[in-house]
Protein backbone atom coordinates (compact mmCIF):
# COMPACT_ATOMS: atom_id res chain seq x y z
CA UNK A 1 0.00 0.00 0.00
CA UNK A 2 1.39 3.41 -0.88
CA UNK A 3 1.42 6.00 1.83
CA UNK A 4 -0.98 8.84 1.05
CA UNK A 5 0.88 12.02 0.16
CA UNK A 6 1.03 14.55 2.96
CA UNK A 7 -0.56 17.88 2.06
CA UNK A 8 1.79 20.77 1.34
CA UNK A 9 0.79 23.58 3.66
CA UNK A 10 1.33 27.12 2.45
CA UNK A 11 2.49 29.02 5.50
CA UNK A 12 2.52 32.74 6.12
CA UNK A 13 4.37 33.77 9.26
CA UNK A 14 2.29 35.35 11.99
CA UNK A 15 2.38 35.43 15.77
CA UNK A 16 4.06 32.46 17.37
CA UNK A 17 6.08 31.64 20.46
CA UNK A 18 9.11 33.45 19.00
CA UNK A 19 7.35 36.59 17.77
CA UNK A 20 7.13 38.21 21.23
CA UNK A 21 10.88 37.90 21.73
CA UNK A 22 11.54 39.33 18.27
CA UNK A 23 9.22 42.29 18.85
CA UNK A 24 10.86 43.01 22.23
CA UNK A 25 14.32 42.73 20.65
CA UNK A 26 13.33 45.16 17.90
CA UNK A 27 11.91 47.64 20.43
CA UNK A 28 14.63 47.37 23.11
CA UNK A 29 17.76 45.69 21.68
CA UNK A 30 19.89 46.98 24.58
CA UNK A 31 17.57 45.75 27.33
CA UNK A 32 18.63 42.74 29.42
CA UNK A 33 16.91 39.56 28.25
CA UNK A 34 18.78 37.03 30.34
CA UNK A 35 21.17 36.74 33.28
CA UNK A 36 23.01 33.46 33.96
CA UNK A 37 25.48 33.21 36.85
CA UNK A 38 26.14 36.94 36.84
CA UNK A 39 26.57 37.25 33.06
CA UNK A 40 23.86 39.28 31.33
CA UNK A 41 22.80 39.21 27.69
CA UNK A 42 20.77 41.86 25.91
CA UNK A 43 17.87 41.08 23.62
CA UNK A 44 20.04 42.10 20.67
CA UNK A 45 22.91 39.79 21.67
CA UNK A 46 20.64 36.83 22.33
CA UNK A 47 18.82 37.32 19.03
CA UNK A 48 22.06 37.41 17.04
CA UNK A 49 23.44 34.32 18.76
CA UNK A 50 20.25 32.34 18.15
CA UNK A 51 20.07 33.45 14.50
CA UNK A 52 23.67 32.29 13.95
CA UNK A 53 22.94 28.87 15.41
CA UNK A 54 19.71 28.58 13.41
CA UNK A 55 21.62 29.44 10.22
CA UNK A 56 24.36 26.90 11.03
CA UNK A 57 21.85 24.10 11.62
CA UNK A 58 19.84 24.84 8.46
CA UNK A 59 23.00 25.06 6.34
CA UNK A 60 24.47 21.81 7.64
CA UNK A 61 21.20 19.91 7.21
CA UNK A 62 20.44 21.47 3.85
CA UNK A 63 16.84 21.93 4.94
CA UNK A 64 14.63 23.32 7.67
CA UNK A 65 14.99 21.24 10.88
CA UNK A 66 11.82 19.62 12.23
CA UNK A 67 12.90 19.05 15.82
CA UNK A 68 15.94 20.28 17.70
CA UNK A 69 17.02 18.91 21.09
CA UNK A 70 18.27 21.33 23.75
CA UNK A 71 20.78 19.49 25.89
CA UNK A 72 21.73 22.24 28.30
CA UNK A 73 21.30 23.00 31.97
CA UNK A 74 20.48 26.53 33.16
CA UNK A 75 23.11 27.98 30.82
CA UNK A 76 23.23 30.64 28.13
CA UNK A 77 23.34 27.82 25.57
CA UNK A 78 20.23 26.18 26.97
CA UNK A 79 18.20 29.41 26.67
CA UNK A 80 19.61 30.71 23.38
CA UNK A 81 19.22 27.18 22.01
CA UNK A 82 15.46 27.31 22.50
CA UNK A 83 15.33 30.53 20.48
CA UNK A 84 17.62 29.08 17.80
CA UNK A 85 15.27 26.12 17.32
CA UNK A 86 12.23 28.40 17.05
CA UNK A 87 14.02 30.84 14.70
CA UNK A 88 14.84 27.90 12.44
CA UNK A 89 11.14 27.01 12.34
CA UNK A 90 11.67 23.87 14.45
CA UNK A 91 10.09 22.34 17.54
CA UNK A 92 12.39 22.49 20.56
CA UNK A 93 12.80 19.37 22.67
CA UNK A 94 14.41 19.95 26.11
CA UNK A 95 16.81 17.31 27.43
CA UNK A 96 18.40 17.22 30.87
CA UNK A 97 21.82 16.08 32.04
CA UNK A 98 20.43 15.30 35.49
CA UNK A 99 18.34 12.52 33.90
CA UNK A 100 19.90 9.07 33.44
CA UNK A 101 21.70 8.96 30.05
CA UNK A 102 19.62 5.96 28.96
CA UNK A 103 16.45 7.98 29.45
CA UNK A 104 17.86 10.89 27.46
CA UNK A 105 18.77 8.51 24.64
CA UNK A 106 15.19 7.13 24.60
CA UNK A 107 13.84 10.69 24.39
CA UNK A 108 16.20 11.53 21.50
CA UNK A 109 15.07 8.39 19.66
CA UNK A 110 11.37 8.96 20.32
CA UNK A 111 11.57 12.60 19.20
CA UNK A 112 13.57 11.68 16.07
CA UNK A 113 15.73 14.79 16.43
CA UNK A 114 17.42 16.45 13.47
CA UNK A 115 19.92 18.30 15.65
CA UNK A 116 20.96 18.73 19.27
CA UNK A 117 22.35 21.93 20.77
CA UNK A 118 24.66 21.01 23.66
CA UNK A 119 26.22 23.13 26.41
CA UNK A 120 29.60 22.37 27.94
CA UNK A 121 28.30 20.94 31.21
CA UNK A 122 26.06 18.49 29.33
CA UNK A 123 28.65 17.57 26.69
CA UNK A 124 30.46 15.26 29.13
CA UNK A 125 27.52 12.83 28.82
CA UNK A 126 27.33 13.05 25.06
CA UNK A 127 29.59 10.15 24.14
CA UNK A 128 27.65 7.75 26.35
CA UNK A 129 24.28 8.97 25.08
CA UNK A 130 25.26 8.74 21.42
CA UNK A 131 26.53 5.17 21.81
CA UNK A 132 24.38 2.99 19.57
CA UNK A 133 22.20 5.88 18.43
CA UNK A 134 21.47 5.65 14.67
CA UNK A 135 21.30 7.98 12.89
CA UNK A 136 23.19 10.53 14.94
CA UNK A 137 21.53 13.95 14.93
CA UNK A 138 23.59 16.96 13.89
CA UNK A 139 25.50 18.23 16.94
CA UNK A 140 25.94 21.93 17.68
CA UNK A 141 28.36 22.59 20.54
CA UNK A 142 28.86 26.36 20.92
CA UNK A 143 31.20 25.95 23.92
CA UNK A 144 33.34 23.04 22.67
CA UNK A 145 35.63 22.25 19.77
CA UNK A 146 34.06 19.92 17.23
CA UNK A 147 37.02 17.52 17.18
CA UNK A 148 36.28 16.39 20.74
CA UNK A 149 33.14 14.68 19.43
CA UNK A 150 33.82 13.91 15.79
CA UNK A 151 33.20 10.37 14.58
CA UNK A 152 32.46 8.73 11.23
CA UNK A 153 28.96 9.56 10.00
CA UNK A 154 28.56 12.39 12.46
CA UNK A 155 28.27 16.09 11.66
CA UNK A 156 29.57 18.24 14.49
CA UNK A 157 29.66 22.03 14.60
CA UNK A 158 31.80 23.52 17.36
CA UNK A 159 33.12 26.92 18.35
CA UNK A 160 35.41 27.23 15.31
CA UNK A 161 32.74 26.24 12.77
CA UNK A 162 30.31 28.78 14.22
CA UNK A 163 32.82 31.63 14.07
CA UNK A 164 32.25 32.45 10.42
CA UNK A 165 28.47 31.92 10.25
CA UNK A 166 26.23 34.92 9.60
CA UNK A 167 22.86 35.25 11.33
CA UNK A 168 19.81 33.67 9.67
CA UNK A 169 18.03 36.58 7.94
CA UNK A 170 14.65 35.19 6.83
CA UNK A 171 12.98 32.97 9.42
CA UNK A 172 10.92 30.08 8.02
CA UNK A 173 7.22 30.84 8.59
CA UNK A 174 5.38 29.24 11.52
CA UNK A 175 1.60 28.83 11.90
CA UNK A 176 -0.43 28.26 15.10
CA UNK A 177 -0.90 24.53 14.51
CA UNK A 178 2.86 23.92 14.31
CA UNK A 179 4.44 22.29 17.37
CA UNK A 180 6.39 24.79 19.48
CA UNK A 181 7.84 22.28 21.92
CA UNK A 182 7.77 18.60 22.68
CA UNK A 183 8.15 17.59 26.31
CA UNK A 184 8.40 14.17 27.84
CA UNK A 185 6.55 13.54 31.07
CA UNK A 186 6.98 10.46 33.19
CA UNK A 187 4.43 7.85 32.27
CA UNK A 188 2.97 5.52 34.86
CA UNK A 189 4.36 2.59 32.88
CA UNK A 190 7.89 3.99 33.08
CA UNK A 191 8.06 4.94 29.38
CA UNK A 192 8.24 8.73 28.93
CA UNK A 193 5.16 10.16 27.19
CA UNK A 194 5.73 12.89 24.63
CA UNK A 195 3.44 15.92 24.81
CA UNK A 196 3.56 18.17 21.73
CA UNK A 197 2.37 21.73 22.43
CA UNK A 198 1.41 23.99 19.53
CA UNK A 199 2.21 27.66 19.09
CA UNK A 200 -1.54 28.31 19.29
CA UNK A 201 -1.76 26.47 22.66
CA UNK A 202 1.07 28.42 24.22
CA UNK A 203 0.08 31.80 22.77
CA UNK A 204 -3.28 31.51 24.51
CA UNK A 205 -1.49 30.90 27.79
CA UNK A 206 0.91 33.79 27.27
CA UNK A 207 -1.86 36.21 26.36
CA UNK A 208 -3.94 35.33 29.44
CA UNK A 209 -0.92 35.67 31.74
CA UNK A 210 0.60 38.88 30.32
CA UNK A 211 -2.79 40.62 30.46
CA UNK A 212 -3.67 39.38 33.92
CA UNK A 213 -0.38 40.41 35.50
CA UNK A 214 0.39 43.48 33.39
CA UNK A 215 3.94 42.35 32.68
CA UNK A 216 6.23 45.25 31.64
CA UNK A 217 9.87 45.62 30.52
CA UNK A 218 10.68 46.62 34.12
CA UNK A 219 9.86 43.12 35.41
CA UNK A 220 12.59 40.73 36.44
CA UNK A 221 11.62 37.04 36.47
CA UNK A 222 13.04 34.13 38.45
CA UNK A 223 13.92 31.08 36.38
CA UNK A 224 13.59 28.23 38.84
CA UNK A 225 12.35 25.29 36.75
CA UNK A 226 14.48 22.84 34.79
CA UNK A 227 13.73 23.31 31.11
CA UNK A 228 12.41 19.75 30.88
CA UNK A 229 9.55 21.02 33.09
CA UNK A 230 7.02 22.97 30.99
CA UNK A 231 6.63 25.66 33.66
CA UNK A 232 10.02 26.98 32.49
CA UNK A 233 8.27 28.14 29.31
CA UNK A 234 6.47 30.68 31.49
CA UNK A 235 9.73 32.06 32.88
CA UNK A 236 11.24 32.63 29.46
CA UNK A 237 8.42 33.48 27.12
CA UNK A 238 6.07 35.44 29.38
CA UNK A 239 9.04 37.66 30.24
CA UNK A 240 10.28 37.98 26.65
CA UNK A 241 6.78 38.65 25.29
CA UNK A 242 6.84 42.00 27.13
CA UNK A 243 10.55 42.84 27.11
CA UNK A 244 11.24 41.79 30.71
CA UNK A 245 14.40 40.00 31.90
CA UNK A 246 14.98 36.44 33.11
CA UNK A 247 17.32 35.50 35.99
CA UNK A 248 18.39 31.86 35.86
CA UNK A 249 18.92 30.29 39.27
CA UNK A 250 21.33 27.46 40.04
CA UNK A 251 20.15 24.51 42.15
CA UNK A 252 21.65 25.67 45.46
CA UNK A 253 20.31 29.19 45.02
CA UNK A 254 16.83 27.69 44.76
CA UNK A 255 17.07 26.39 48.30
CA UNK A 256 18.39 29.65 49.72
CA UNK A 257 16.94 32.26 47.37
CA UNK A 258 16.71 35.37 49.57
CA UNK A 259 20.01 36.88 48.55
CA UNK A 260 19.43 36.08 44.88
CA UNK A 261 15.96 37.67 44.87
CA UNK A 262 17.18 40.74 46.75
CA UNK A 263 20.39 41.31 44.80
CA UNK A 264 18.65 41.03 41.44
CA UNK A 265 15.54 42.87 42.66
CA UNK A 266 13.30 40.20 41.19
CA UNK A 267 9.67 41.23 40.76
CA UNK A 268 8.20 37.89 39.65
CA UNK A 269 8.75 34.60 41.49
CA UNK A 270 7.48 31.29 40.11
CA UNK A 271 8.37 27.91 41.62
CA UNK A 272 7.09 24.62 42.91
CA UNK A 273 5.62 24.78 46.46
CA UNK A 274 8.43 22.47 47.65
CA UNK A 275 10.72 25.51 47.78
CA UNK A 276 8.76 27.48 50.40
CA UNK A 277 8.24 24.18 52.27
CA UNK A 278 11.99 23.57 52.44
CA UNK A 279 12.60 27.20 53.41
CA UNK A 280 10.04 26.97 56.21
CA UNK A 281 11.72 23.86 57.53
CA UNK A 282 15.08 25.60 57.62
CA UNK A 283 13.69 28.88 58.99
CA UNK A 284 14.70 30.77 55.83
CA UNK A 285 11.27 32.27 55.10
CA UNK A 286 11.44 35.51 57.09
CA UNK A 287 8.73 38.19 57.21
CA UNK A 288 9.58 41.00 54.79
CA UNK A 289 12.45 39.01 53.27
CA UNK A 290 11.32 39.58 49.68
CA UNK A 291 10.27 43.24 49.45
CA UNK A 292 10.94 43.50 45.69
CA UNK A 293 8.45 40.82 44.63
CA UNK A 294 5.17 42.05 43.19
CA UNK A 295 4.03 38.65 41.94
CA UNK A 296 4.54 35.21 43.53
CA UNK A 297 3.22 32.18 41.69
CA UNK A 298 3.27 28.52 42.63
CA UNK A 299 2.44 25.53 40.48
CA UNK A 300 3.28 21.88 40.00
CA UNK A 301 1.94 20.34 43.19
CA UNK A 302 -0.52 21.24 45.96
CA UNK A 303 0.27 24.48 47.83
CA UNK A 304 -0.09 24.09 51.62
CA UNK A 305 -1.92 26.94 53.39
CA UNK A 306 0.99 27.34 55.80
CA UNK A 307 3.41 27.89 52.90
CA UNK A 308 1.09 30.45 51.29
CA UNK A 309 0.76 32.34 54.57
CA UNK A 310 4.49 32.31 55.29
CA UNK A 311 5.37 33.38 51.74
CA UNK A 312 2.81 36.18 51.81
CA UNK A 313 4.44 37.51 54.98
CA UNK A 314 7.86 37.23 53.39
CA UNK A 315 6.64 39.06 50.28
CA UNK A 316 4.22 41.64 51.65
CA UNK A 317 4.11 43.68 48.42
CA UNK A 318 3.28 40.66 46.30
CA UNK A 319 0.15 39.17 44.85
CA UNK A 320 0.24 35.42 45.55
CA UNK A 321 -1.46 32.97 43.22
CA UNK A 322 -1.73 29.22 43.08
CA UNK A 323 -1.69 27.88 39.53
CA UNK A 324 -2.75 24.46 38.39
CA UNK A 325 -2.25 22.60 35.16
CA UNK A 326 -0.79 19.51 33.52
CA UNK A 327 1.57 19.73 30.52
CA UNK A 328 -1.29 18.49 28.31
CA UNK A 329 -3.20 21.72 29.05
CA UNK A 330 -0.19 23.97 28.36
CA UNK A 331 1.62 25.07 31.52
CA UNK A 332 -1.39 26.11 33.66
CA UNK A 333 -5.13 26.38 33.16
CA UNK A 334 -6.70 27.21 36.54
CA UNK A 335 -5.66 29.72 39.19
CA UNK A 336 -6.60 31.06 42.59
CA UNK A 337 -5.51 34.37 44.05
CA UNK A 338 -4.57 33.97 47.72
CA UNK A 339 -6.67 36.26 49.89
CA UNK A 340 -5.81 36.08 53.60
CA UNK A 341 -9.44 36.91 54.44
CA UNK A 342 -11.37 34.85 51.95
CA UNK A 343 -9.12 31.95 50.93
CA UNK A 344 -8.74 30.03 54.22
CA UNK A 345 -12.44 29.13 54.23
CA UNK A 346 -12.08 27.61 50.75
CA UNK A 347 -9.12 25.39 51.62
CA UNK A 348 -9.53 21.64 51.83
CA UNK A 349 -7.05 19.28 53.52
CA UNK A 350 -4.92 22.31 54.36
CA UNK A 351 -4.30 23.03 50.68
CA UNK A 352 -4.95 26.26 48.77
CA UNK A 353 -7.71 25.95 46.11
CA UNK A 354 -6.63 25.58 42.50
CA UNK A 355 -9.28 28.14 41.63
CA UNK A 356 -11.09 28.84 38.40
CA UNK A 357 -10.31 28.15 34.76
CA UNK A 358 -8.41 30.75 32.72
CA UNK A 359 -10.60 33.01 30.54
CA UNK A 360 -11.46 31.09 27.38
CA UNK A 361 -11.13 27.63 28.97
CA UNK A 362 -13.80 25.37 30.46
CA UNK A 363 -13.53 23.05 33.46
CA UNK A 364 -15.91 20.30 34.55
CA UNK A 365 -16.08 17.34 36.90
CA UNK A 366 -16.88 13.96 35.39
CA UNK A 367 -17.36 10.51 36.87
CA UNK A 368 -15.65 7.33 35.64
CA UNK A 369 -18.23 7.00 32.86
CA UNK A 370 -17.67 10.62 31.79
CA UNK A 371 -21.06 11.72 33.16
CA UNK A 372 -21.18 15.17 34.77
CA UNK A 373 -21.12 15.40 38.55
CA UNK A 374 -23.77 17.90 39.51
CA UNK A 375 -24.41 17.20 43.19
CA UNK A 376 -21.37 19.10 44.47
CA UNK A 377 -19.43 15.90 44.94
CA UNK A 378 -15.90 15.07 43.83
CA UNK A 379 -14.96 13.90 40.37
CA UNK A 380 -12.20 13.85 37.80
CA UNK A 381 -11.28 17.36 36.69
CA UNK A 382 -11.60 17.68 32.91
CA UNK A 383 -10.68 20.79 30.93
CA UNK A 384 -11.47 21.97 27.40
CA UNK A 385 -10.45 24.95 25.29
CA UNK A 386 -7.59 26.37 23.22
CA UNK A 387 -4.80 25.16 25.55
CA UNK A 388 -5.64 21.48 25.08
CA UNK A 389 -2.77 19.92 23.15
CA UNK A 390 -3.44 17.82 20.03
CA UNK A 391 -2.66 14.52 21.81
CA UNK A 392 0.30 12.39 22.82
CA UNK A 393 3.33 12.07 20.60
CA UNK A 394 2.93 9.03 18.36
CA UNK A 395 0.54 7.30 20.75
CA UNK A 396 -3.00 7.16 19.40
CA UNK A 397 -4.17 4.68 22.01
CA UNK A 398 -3.09 6.82 24.96
CA UNK A 399 -4.49 9.91 23.23
CA UNK A 400 -7.91 8.26 22.81
CA UNK A 401 -7.88 7.33 26.49
CA UNK A 402 -7.14 10.80 27.90
CA UNK A 403 -8.54 13.18 25.26
CA UNK A 404 -12.25 12.46 24.95
CA UNK A 405 -15.38 14.01 23.49
CA UNK A 406 -18.09 15.06 25.91
CA UNK A 407 -21.55 16.14 24.82
CA UNK A 408 -22.41 19.31 26.72
CA UNK A 409 -25.70 20.05 24.91
CA UNK A 410 -27.77 18.23 22.28
CA UNK A 411 -25.82 19.90 19.50
CA UNK A 412 -22.42 20.59 21.02
CA UNK A 413 -19.62 18.18 21.81
CA UNK A 414 -16.35 19.41 23.31
CA UNK A 415 -12.96 17.76 23.39
CA UNK A 416 -11.68 17.56 26.95
CA UNK A 417 -8.50 16.37 28.57
CA UNK A 418 -8.99 14.10 31.56
CA UNK A 419 -6.43 15.29 34.10
CA UNK A 420 -6.48 12.23 36.35
CA UNK A 421 -6.89 14.65 39.28
CA UNK A 422 -9.79 14.43 41.71
CA UNK A 423 -11.34 17.77 42.51
CA UNK A 424 -14.49 19.30 43.96
CA UNK A 425 -16.16 22.57 43.07
CA UNK A 426 -16.88 25.07 45.82
CA UNK A 427 -20.11 27.11 45.39
CA UNK A 428 -17.87 30.16 44.81
CA UNK A 429 -16.72 28.52 41.57
CA UNK A 430 -13.28 27.69 42.93
CA UNK A 431 -12.07 24.16 42.38
CA UNK A 432 -10.19 22.38 45.14
CA UNK A 433 -7.70 19.62 44.49
CA UNK A 434 -8.29 16.40 46.40
CA UNK A 435 -5.58 14.13 45.06
CA UNK A 436 -4.79 11.97 42.09
CA UNK A 437 -7.60 9.73 40.91
CA UNK A 438 -5.16 6.89 41.50
CA UNK A 439 -4.28 8.16 45.01
CA UNK A 440 -7.70 7.10 46.03
CA UNK A 441 -6.81 3.61 47.07
CA UNK A 442 -8.61 0.70 48.66
CA UNK A 443 -7.31 -0.44 52.02
CA UNK A 444 -8.80 -3.79 52.93
CA UNK A 445 -11.89 -2.86 50.97
CA UNK A 446 -12.28 0.68 52.32
CA UNK A 447 -12.00 3.58 49.92
CA UNK A 448 -9.22 5.84 51.21
CA UNK A 449 -8.16 9.28 49.98
CA UNK A 450 -4.46 9.52 50.82
CA UNK A 451 -4.73 13.34 50.81
CA UNK A 452 -7.00 13.21 53.85
CA UNK A 453 -4.45 11.26 55.86
CA UNK A 454 -1.72 13.66 54.79
CA UNK A 455 -3.84 16.63 55.85
CA UNK A 456 -4.36 15.06 59.28
CA UNK A 457 -0.59 14.67 59.66
CA UNK A 458 0.15 18.20 58.48
CA UNK A 459 -2.26 19.60 61.04
CA UNK A 460 0.56 19.07 63.56
CA UNK A 461 2.52 22.32 63.67
CA UNK A 462 5.87 20.52 63.58
CA UNK A 463 5.07 18.73 60.32
CA UNK A 464 5.93 20.53 57.07
CA UNK A 465 5.42 17.74 54.54
CA UNK A 466 3.50 14.51 54.82
CA UNK A 467 3.01 11.68 52.34
CA UNK A 468 0.92 8.59 52.95
CA UNK A 469 1.29 5.46 50.89
CA UNK A 470 -0.67 2.24 50.82
CA UNK A 471 1.66 -0.49 52.12
CA UNK A 472 2.16 -3.38 52.06
CA UNK A 473 0.44 -4.03 48.77
CA UNK A 474 -0.44 -7.64 48.24
CA UNK A 475 -2.36 -8.95 45.28
CA UNK A 476 -3.12 -5.43 44.15
CA UNK A 477 -4.69 -4.21 47.37
CA UNK A 478 -3.11 -2.25 50.19
CA UNK A 479 -3.21 -3.81 53.62
CA UNK A 480 -2.36 -0.68 55.53
CA UNK A 481 -0.92 2.83 55.44
CA UNK A 482 2.62 3.99 56.12
CA UNK A 483 3.31 7.73 56.37
CA UNK A 484 6.46 9.75 55.80
CA UNK A 485 6.73 13.16 57.45
CA UNK A 486 9.34 15.89 57.51
CA UNK A 487 9.64 18.98 59.66
CA UNK A 488 11.43 19.95 62.81
CA UNK A 489 10.85 18.70 66.34
CA UNK A 490 8.34 16.03 65.38
CA UNK A 491 7.18 13.78 68.22
CA UNK A 492 6.18 10.56 66.47
CA UNK A 493 4.20 9.14 69.34
CA UNK A 494 2.18 12.29 69.89
CA UNK A 495 1.61 12.66 66.17
CA UNK A 496 0.30 9.12 65.83
CA UNK A 497 -2.03 9.66 68.77
CA UNK A 498 -3.38 12.88 67.29
CA UNK A 499 -3.97 11.26 63.93
CA UNK A 500 -5.62 8.25 65.51
CA UNK A 501 -8.12 10.57 67.14
CA UNK A 502 -9.13 11.95 63.74
CA UNK A 503 -9.11 9.00 61.38
CA UNK A 504 -10.77 5.62 61.30
CA UNK A 505 -8.56 2.64 62.06
CA UNK A 506 -8.10 1.58 58.46
CA UNK A 507 -6.79 5.08 57.59
CA UNK A 508 -4.46 5.43 60.56
CA UNK A 509 -0.84 4.86 59.56
CA UNK A 510 0.60 1.70 61.06
CA UNK A 511 3.93 3.50 61.06
CA UNK A 512 5.08 7.11 60.76
CA UNK A 513 8.62 7.60 59.53
CA UNK A 514 10.36 10.93 60.06
CA UNK A 515 12.74 11.89 57.26
CA UNK A 516 14.85 15.03 56.80
CA UNK A 517 13.72 15.80 53.27
CA UNK A 518 11.29 14.26 50.85
CA UNK A 519 12.79 12.68 47.73
CA UNK A 520 11.92 14.84 44.73
CA UNK A 521 11.52 13.83 41.11
CA UNK A 522 13.44 15.70 38.38
CA UNK A 523 10.73 18.38 38.32
CA UNK A 524 11.05 19.08 42.03
CA UNK A 525 7.82 17.36 43.04
CA UNK A 526 7.68 14.87 45.89
CA UNK A 527 8.49 11.44 44.47
CA UNK A 528 5.91 9.02 45.90
CA UNK A 529 7.33 6.10 43.97
CA UNK A 530 10.72 6.57 45.63
CA UNK A 531 9.04 6.43 49.05
CA UNK A 532 7.14 3.32 48.06
CA UNK A 533 10.41 1.76 46.91
CA UNK A 534 12.03 2.53 50.27
CA UNK A 535 9.31 0.48 51.90
CA UNK A 536 9.60 -2.30 49.34
CA UNK A 537 13.35 -2.39 50.00
CA UNK A 538 12.84 -2.98 53.72
CA UNK A 539 10.52 -5.93 53.41
Amino acid at each position, binding site marked *: MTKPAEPVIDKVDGRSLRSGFLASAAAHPQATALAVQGVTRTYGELETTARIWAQAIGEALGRRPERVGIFGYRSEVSYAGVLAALFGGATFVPLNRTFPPARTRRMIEAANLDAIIVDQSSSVQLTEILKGLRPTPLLLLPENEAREFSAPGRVVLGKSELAGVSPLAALPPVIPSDIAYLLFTSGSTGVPKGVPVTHGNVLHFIDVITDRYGITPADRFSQTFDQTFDLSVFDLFVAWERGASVYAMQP*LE*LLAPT*RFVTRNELTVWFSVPSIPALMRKKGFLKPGGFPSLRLSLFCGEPLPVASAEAWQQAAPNSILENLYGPTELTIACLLHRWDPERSPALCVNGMVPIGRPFPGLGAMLLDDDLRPITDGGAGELCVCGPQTVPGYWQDDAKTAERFVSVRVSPSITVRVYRTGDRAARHPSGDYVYLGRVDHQIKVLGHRVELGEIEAALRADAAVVEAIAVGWPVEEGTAHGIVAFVSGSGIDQGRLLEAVRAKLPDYMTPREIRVI*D*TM*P*LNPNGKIDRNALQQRLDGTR
Partner: protein
Amino acid sequence: MSKPIEAVIAETFRISPAAVLDTLAFNAIPEWDSLAHMDLMLALEAAYGVTIDEDRMLELTSVRAIREFLRDGARGA
Protein backbone atom coordinates in the same frame (compact mmCIF):
# COMPACT_ATOMS: atom_id res chain seq x y z
CA MET B 1 32.26 14.28 72.46
CA SER B 2 30.74 15.13 69.08
CA LYS B 3 30.86 12.92 66.04
CA PRO B 4 33.65 13.46 63.48
CA ILE B 5 32.67 15.55 60.46
CA GLU B 6 33.51 12.67 58.14
CA ALA B 7 30.95 10.46 59.86
CA VAL B 8 28.16 13.04 59.66
CA ILE B 9 28.82 13.66 55.98
CA ALA B 10 29.20 9.98 55.13
CA GLU B 11 25.98 9.10 56.93
CA THR B 12 24.03 11.90 55.26
CA PHE B 13 25.14 10.93 51.77
CA ARG B 14 25.28 7.19 52.51
CA ILE B 15 28.87 6.97 51.26
CA SER B 16 32.04 5.53 52.77
CA PRO B 17 33.77 7.79 55.36
CA ALA B 18 37.00 7.11 53.43
CA ALA B 19 35.51 9.00 50.48
CA VAL B 20 35.04 12.14 52.56
CA LEU B 21 38.20 14.01 51.55
CA ASP B 22 38.72 17.75 52.04
CA THR B 23 38.40 18.25 48.29
CA LEU B 24 35.01 16.56 48.08
CA ALA B 25 32.50 19.20 46.99
CA PHE B 26 28.90 19.86 46.13
CA ASN B 27 27.86 18.23 42.83
CA ALA B 28 31.16 16.33 42.56
CA ILE B 29 29.34 13.09 43.33
CA PRO B 30 25.71 12.23 42.55
CA GLU B 31 25.03 11.74 46.28
CA TRP B 32 25.78 15.42 47.02
CA ASP B 33 23.04 17.17 45.12
CA SER B 34 21.09 20.20 46.23
CA LEU B 35 18.52 18.32 48.31
CA ALA B 36 21.23 16.26 49.98
CA HIS B 37 23.00 19.54 50.68
CA MET B 38 19.94 20.71 52.60
CA ASP B 39 19.96 17.40 54.53
CA LEU B 40 23.63 17.92 55.31
CA MET B 41 23.04 21.43 56.66
CA LEU B 42 20.30 20.10 58.96
CA ALA B 43 22.57 17.25 60.05
CA LEU B 44 25.44 19.65 60.85
CA GLU B 45 23.11 21.87 62.86
CA ALA B 46 21.86 18.89 64.83
CA ALA B 47 25.32 17.39 65.39
CA TYR B 48 27.23 20.54 66.37
CA GLY B 49 24.56 22.92 67.65
CA VAL B 50 25.43 25.56 65.03
CA THR B 51 23.05 27.73 63.06
CA ILE B 52 23.50 27.84 59.30
CA ASP B 53 21.80 30.72 57.54
CA GLU B 54 21.11 31.04 53.83
CA ASP B 55 24.36 32.76 52.91
CA ARG B 56 26.41 30.29 54.94
CA MET B 57 24.63 27.38 53.28
CA LEU B 58 25.76 28.65 49.87
CA GLU B 59 29.35 28.82 51.11
CA LEU B 60 29.57 25.40 52.74
CA THR B 61 29.93 23.57 49.45
CA SER B 62 33.07 21.57 50.18
CA VAL B 63 34.32 19.42 53.02
CA ARG B 64 37.14 21.90 53.54
CA ALA B 65 34.72 24.83 53.86
CA ILE B 66 32.60 22.89 56.34
CA ARG B 67 35.64 21.91 58.40
CA GLU B 68 36.86 25.53 58.53
CA PHE B 69 33.43 26.85 59.44
CA LEU B 70 33.02 24.40 62.29
CA ARG B 71 36.52 25.07 63.59
CA ASP B 72 36.15 28.87 63.45
CA GLY B 73 32.54 28.72 64.64
CA ALA B 74 33.57 26.71 67.70
CA ARG B 75 36.35 29.18 68.48
CA GLY B 76 33.95 32.11 68.20
CA ALA B 77 31.37 30.45 70.47
